[in-house]
């Protein structure tokens, strides 16, 4: 109790134990569900639920340090999910390669072959979600906003590419990135030179960072897609 500053409200302090209990109970329920399920793709999805319970327990601490711990936790969780799903797909493809005529194994419910679904939601929803993400990112500004807006751009590019449509490649995306970098620098400089214009410099820096991160993330997504398509 020594480490809690006096201005932290009592309500937040009492939330710690319920949050930890909630995390552990969610983890317990998820592991029970994994024990009952026999299909591998379901197990994989349920395992992600255990990872979310981990975020519960870490974020229950609620300090600055804990916030710094959530991000690597999330990244680790995401990387493990990606790696394991990749393993699952590779294994199923190897099994099909070895014996293309045999029946699909009962335990796995995935079938790693391309197939087309003719549903309206597959064509309209990605555009809408991308628009919402970009709008929300611009509203947030700063680093988080840039990441959200960049995620929207990546989603848009991925969904267009997956349908085989041409993606509008922005050749000037590096230029936008450079200009936003300048905005950021000018914002910082103004902040020190003329502190009375702090609001202007704050917005310059925030919008510069937004454009910078969004263009970077969008660029990574487009490049990644190009790289995969080459093989």
């Amino acid at each position: 109790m020594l480490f809690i500053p006096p201005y932290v409200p009592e309500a937040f302090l009492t939330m710690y134990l319920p949050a930890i209990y909630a995390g552990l109970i969610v983890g317990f329920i998820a592991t029970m569900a994994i024990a009952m399920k026999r299909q591998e793709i379901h197990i994989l999805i349920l395992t992600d639920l255990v990872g979310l319970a981990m975020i519960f327990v870490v974020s229950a601490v609620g300090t600055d340090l804990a916030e710094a711990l959530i991000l690597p936790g999330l990244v680790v969780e995401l990387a493990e999910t990606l790696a394991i799903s990749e393993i699952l797909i590779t294994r199923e493809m190897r099994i099909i390669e070895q014996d293309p005529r045999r029946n699909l194994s009962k335990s796995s419910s995935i079938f790693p072959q391309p197939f087309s679904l003719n549903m309206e939601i597959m064509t309209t929803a990605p555009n809408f979600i991308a628009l919402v993400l970009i709008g929300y990112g611009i509203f947030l500004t700063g680093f988080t906003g840039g990441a959200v807006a960049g995620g929207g751009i990546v989603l848009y590019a991925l969904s267009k590419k997956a349908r085989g449509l041409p993606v509008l490649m922005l050749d000037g995306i590096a230029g936008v990135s450079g200009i936003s970098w300048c905005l950021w620098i000018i914002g910082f400089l103004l902040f020190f030179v003329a502190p009375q214009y702090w609001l202007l410099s704050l917005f310059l820096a925030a919008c510069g960072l937004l454009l910078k991160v969004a263009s970077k993330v969008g660029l990574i997504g487009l490049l990644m897609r190009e790289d995969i398509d080459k093989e």
Partner: protein
Amino acid sequence: MDFVTLGGNLLGTIPLGDIVLYVTPFNLFLFAVLLGFTLLIALSKPETQVEATMHNLNNTEVKVGPKEFKQRRFLSIICGIASAGAMITGDLFNFTLFMALVGILNIGIVSAVKQTTVLNSAFNYGLIAMMCSLPLFGGAAIILAATGTLSLAVLSQMPASPMVVFGAVLMLIGILGESGVAPFFASKAEMFRTAGSPFIVIIHLSSLFIIVRAVEILLLVLW
């Protein structure tokens, strides 16, 4: 327990703000051995397995292709460096992160093999590793909440409260699952049964060394 009792004479500390790296002969030895092994891996070539064929008098070679070899060598070197980092770190959460990184890299090293049994084992190990990230990170977070610090140098001076013991027990479960030892070894056992020996051995070696270091860390936190 003090780290002088566990690791021998204190050779020096490297203060990086809140995180204080401490250098004892114990840590230094583990660190140097892992770095040396990583160097060996970076220089070596993979072995080729010879398998007897069924119903025939032939032998088949299980070789590693050049592309797979490069990818595997890269991941093994990163795995070695991550384990070496886990040996020398003075921060509880850094240790858990190195631990999780080693887990992901272990899956990555065998991800491109052709044997479906190995892939099956890697899948099961990955599931266990992901489930065990809850007790691993959760335990570290509970220790942080109970003591207010993650620095091992500070934690070793503190008396253990019941909450710290609970966190340490959770962390132990997490470490056991992430490194695939004792109760969880069944998931990881088949992962080594493929060609490309020195790269496969790092999977084994990293989890062994991390267990040794984890015992030291848990003793530091608890006593």
